[in-house]
């Protein structure tokens, strides 16, 4: 039975359609600008529909030779950061998940607390240190910096994953004579693999999108987000639009792929990128 309080009021659907239009339109406009001739964008009265479809801006992006280096840098930094994050966090998260609830809660909260600090406060001393260590403008330096953002989050997700695996399984493995490392690798990790995969995809995106640390730690060798910003500063709308599109496609794809996991509340907070 549908009670009165649960019935939809008549203006709800129009409102929802309006909001959805607001959410979708800017993304459409971004792709539209990247495929439009300058005449219909750089005018006092830009058009909303395609009048003259052109691949010119994308050809420029590919032909300029400015794409490959940032693309490769972004790809390799994100991949290295993800692998390193899993390597550092998996054992730690497993231990945290097996702690007594009171301690576990405190540790997770402390991890979360470290994400309260603004990036500009953390990036500044790291930049100063990296100048001394010659890590400015290097891939490895950027990986180290991105991990700062990634680790607390991935640890948080992995603790949740390990929590769903009952510890009876470990006890059974010990009874059968397995030691703790064997238990972890042969019993626990295979069960945690799906959760780890989701976490890996999310942190990969986090690094792929990362802007603030990259801005502080880069002099000349841009990542993809920095390259986009570079065109914004130079006022080149079309290159900025094309690079934005390039940056967005994998993120949009994974977001839609992982919708199911995003529903479970807490993941959502971190994926604002």
């Amino acid at each position, binding site marked *: 039975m549908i009670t009165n309080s649960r019935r939809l009021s008549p203006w709800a659907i129009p409102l929802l359609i309006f909001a959805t239009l607001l959410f979708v339109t800017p993304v459409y406009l971004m792709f539209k600008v990247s495929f439009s001739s300058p005449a219909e964008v750089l005018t006092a009265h*830009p058009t909303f529909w395609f009048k003259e479809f052109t691949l010119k801006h994308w050809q420029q992006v590919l032909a300029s030779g400015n794409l490959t280096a940032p693309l490769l840098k972004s790809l390799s930094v994100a991949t290295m950061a993800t692998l390193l994050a899993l390597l550092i966090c998996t054992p730690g998260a497993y231990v945290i998940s097996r702690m007594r609830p009171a301690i576990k809660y405190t540790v997770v909260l402390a991890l979360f607390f470290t994400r309260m600090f603004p990036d500009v*406060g953390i990036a500044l001393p790291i930049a100063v240190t990296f100048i001394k260590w010659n890590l400015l403008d290097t891939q490895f330096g950027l990986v180290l910096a991105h991990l700062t953002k990634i680790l607390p989050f991935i640890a948080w997700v992995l603790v949740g994953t390990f929590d769903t695996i009952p510890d009876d399984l470990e006890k059974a493995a010990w009874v059968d004579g397995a030691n703790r490392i064997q238990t972890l690798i042969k019993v626990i990790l295979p069960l945690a693999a799906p959760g780890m995969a989701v976490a890996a995809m999310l942190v990969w995106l986090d690094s792929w999108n990362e802007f603030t640390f990259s801005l502080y730690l880069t002099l000349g060798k841009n990542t993809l987000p920095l390259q986009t910003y570079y065109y914004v500063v130079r006022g080149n709308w079309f290159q900025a639009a094309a690079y934005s599109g390039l940056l967005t496609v994998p993120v949009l794809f994974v977001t839609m792929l992982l919708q199911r996991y995003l529903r479970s509340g807490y993941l959502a907070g971190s994926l604002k990128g």
Partner: protein
Amino acid sequence: MKSATLSWRRHGFGLLLLVPLVAYVFGFTLLPVLQSITYGFTTAAGDFTLENYRVLFANSQFLAAMRNTLLITVIGLTLEMAVGLGLALILTREFKLRGLFRSLMLIPMGVPTIVSGVTLMYVFDSSGYLNELLFRLGLIKLPIDFATGGLRTLMMVVFADMWKVVPVVVLLMLAGLESIPDELYEAAAVDGATGWRAFWRITLPLLKPAITMTVILRGVDTFRIFELPLILAGRVNPVLATFAYTEYNQYHNNNTSGAAATFLMGLIVICVVAYLVLVERERKAKV
């Protein structure tokens, strides 16, 4: 005796697994934070001083950044929560195409923050698409320049931020709403409480934990907002984070940059703690 050794071994092993994570968080978060605070309280030569803060509070740009940050946080957070909760309330009901709407609403989440800045630049530019829309609707004759400063620019940043994060708020609110059992509404309806009454008496009180979490998550992010003002408002309208960046990048002054970052950190910590204390006190008063 034997079991004690075993338990020591077990704990020792556990601690060993924790070391990389703890060491990393210590070295790459806590240490830098302490260093930033130290920069703020020292001269370039490293002596203790309060001069950096005196300079900041005499700097009109810093005062503007402080005001802008607070306004963006208060206005943005209020609007985000209201709109997010409203949309979530609609999306909990059963209707055709609900799944499609839920999916479409996630699209801004799939857009990197830097890209949302670029995209909304096309919308809010003086020859951008919003101006064109208003013009075609006959609401304006001459284009509005949203980036001239003042409240207009702040509202532009607020709307840009909302575009990006309202979907997150909707998701968090949906998770909270779906944990409220339908039976409560049915029982309330029997007692004659429907519509707004049910919303005030059942939905809001039971949603409080979800609201608290969302306000803290979102509040922290709005305080340290960086990319959107950097792209949309430029240096005309600084916020605290972009101010700290400019001090470092343009003026190569690590000490004032550190001081500004420290001030921002302090602001965030104080607001989060104050909010938690308020929520806790209210909860105790009710029990």
